[in-house]
């Protein structure tokens, strides 16, 4: 019975009461002159009591209950040890939610995409206004070219090999388009060497390829601005006194009648391939 009472008191966490009970219990039920067979039992009690006593905490609280003592010891720390990992997890979850939300917001569903704009060219907007002079000394701006399909190429008359080859291919392809498919595309040649290529020079040069090619030149700043709009790289190299070569990106630009870029062609196209590709573009966008 004293054991049960002790246990009860322990479960109720009345530490001082339990201890007093224990003490009183030991004194009452085990007087000094006790029989021998009971000697072992009080030693257990006393040892148990001592064990309980030893768990007294320095601040005066009696922690005779081992289970509860451990808990009370760690109570002030529990807030700290649980808050930091919880905070980290919350932060991580918050970041993940934000990223997911951002992705959801930016998503374009499959099958839709850029159906709003008919232009298939992704990337920088190539093209823009320009003001140049043609071979007859007339001012030509991009407004003059509206309403025609335009094949635009940049070059200069003093090119050793690439320039004439490119013009040759262009002329042949356009002639094929004109004769076989009756598709009119206006060829335009803009010089990136305006200091040496005067309108008269251009006229003499282009006459040998095709009389329909429109040659454009102008002030250096105007040409540079147009080259920038069309993302054309050109640079003077190999300066030998008065003579120099101009390195440039050899591309041909096909513009639709609204002067928007439809396609660009590199040097790998020969005349037949070029005419085929241009025809495909013309058929795809029947804006006449």
């Amino acid at each position, binding site marked *: 019975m004293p054991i049960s009472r002790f246990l009860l008191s322990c479960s109720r966490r009345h530490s001082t009461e339990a201890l007093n009970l224990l003490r009183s219990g030991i004194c009452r039920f085990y007087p000094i002159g006790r029989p021998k067979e009971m000697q072992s039992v009080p030693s257990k009690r006393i040892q148990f009591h001592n064990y309980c006593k030893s768990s007294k905490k320095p601040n005066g609280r009696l922690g005779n209950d081992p289970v509860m003592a451990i808990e009370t010891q760690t109570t002030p720390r529990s807030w700290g040890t649980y808050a930091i990992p919880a905070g980290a997890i919350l932060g991580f979850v918050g970041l993940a939610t934000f990223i997911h939300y951002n992705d959801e917001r930016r998503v374009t569903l499959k099958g839709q995409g850029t159906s709003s704009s008919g232009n298939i060219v992704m990337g920088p907007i190539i093209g823009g206004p320009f003001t140049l*002079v043609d071979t*007859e*000394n*007339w*001012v*030509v*701006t991009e407004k*003059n070219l509206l309403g025609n399909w335009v094949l635009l190429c940049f070059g200069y*008359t*003093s090119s*050793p*090999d690439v320039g*004439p080859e490119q013009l040759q291919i262009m002329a042949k392809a356009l002639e094929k388009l004109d004769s076989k498919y009756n598709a009119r595309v206006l060829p335009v040649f803009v010089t990136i060497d305006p*200091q*040496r290529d*005067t*309108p*008269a*020079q251009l006229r*003499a*040069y282009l006459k*040998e390829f095709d009389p329909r090619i429109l040659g454009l030149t*102008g*002030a250096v700043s105007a040409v540079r601005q147009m080259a920038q709009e069309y993302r054309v790289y050109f640079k003077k190299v*190999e300066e*030998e*006194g008065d*003579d*120099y*070569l101009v390195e440039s990106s050899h591309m041909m630009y096909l513009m639709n009648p609204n002067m928007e870029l439809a396609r660009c062609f590199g040097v790998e196209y020969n005349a037949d391939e070029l005419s085929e590709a241009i025809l495909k573009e013309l058929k795809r966008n029947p804006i006449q």
Partner: protein
Amino acid sequence: MAQPQEAYATRNPNNIRTDVLAEARQACYKARDAFYACVEKETDKKPTEIASVGLLYPSDCKASRAEFEKLCRASWVNHFDRQYCKNRRVQRLLDDKESRRGV
């Protein structure tokens, strides 16, 4: 089309350089081909003369070299020489594959 604009070039605008027109170009190309053919033919001879941009050629081809330099512009001569050297280097690389095995 707008009004005709005055010529903007400071130099004489009617001065046309004919050496870039078709005839001169064709002559230049022919001289160039002749010179390079000569160099190809004489590959076993020791190159003694110095052309531009590091191209060496044997003295037998001196005549065609002079012709080439006369008919073509200086910058074009440099350009063609450089291109020729590049092609030769690539060719040498491709041919050399047989001599080195397992590399």
